[in-house]
């Protein structure tokens, strides 16, 4: 069964600084990868997804993620964060079959003015 590890539970960062949120998954077989964002008191929203093709995936709000098959990683990056990026971010993985998504435990990003 797939598993997802988000290496940092909390990441504080100053406004306009770059940020990287790390995600590793367990299996080296072909997978689909997702990042979701959860703002306070809301549900999860899709930020970006990797299905195939280019390993660099661009999402909403200036975020991007890079798929690295050899390291089984899918780290999320933004070159300059804003206060409004303060939220919890979840990495998720699914295999090529009809199994549900498996989520990581989340990383809370706090942007400091």
């Amino acid at each position: 069964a797939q598993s997802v590890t988000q290496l940092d539970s909390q990441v504080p960062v100053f406004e306009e600084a770059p940020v990287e949120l790390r995600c590793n998954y367990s299996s080296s077989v072909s997978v689909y990868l997702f990042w979701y964002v959860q703002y306070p008191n809301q549900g999860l929203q899709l930020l970006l997804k990797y299905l195939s093709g280019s390993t660099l995936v661009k999402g909403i709000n200036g975020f991007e993620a890079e798929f690295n098959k050899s390291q089984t990683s899918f780290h999320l990056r933004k070159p300059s964060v804003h206060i409004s990026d303060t939220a919890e971010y979840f990495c998720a993985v699914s295999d090529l079959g009809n199994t549900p998504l498996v989520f990581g435990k989340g990383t809370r990003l706090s942007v400091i003015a």
Partner: protein
Amino acid sequence: NAGVTQTPKFRVLKTGQSMTLLCAQDMNHEYMYWYRQDPGMGLRLIHYSVGEGTTAKGEVPDGYNVSRLKKQNFLLGLESAAPSQTSVYFCASSYSGQGGQPQHFGDGTRLSIL
């Protein structure tokens, strides 16, 4: 567009009481899911459905039952609530279960059991 709607948004129960959480989606999605979210635990899948009339167990199904009598609705029931079921519950739906299909989430139901 409503998307995924969860009812109620908040509820406080006493231990032993029962209740049903309702999830409705208007996107004609085949798959629907119930998750619980607890601090430091991420989202854990309780039950899911691959179509009308079907249900399947997820990672943490004990103490919960579900029904999918209509394609657009997915009900989560607690027959005898326990304090360990205090959590935020999220419903989600997807067009299909094929890998790569994103899930669409509701805004959650905050449930406290005293």
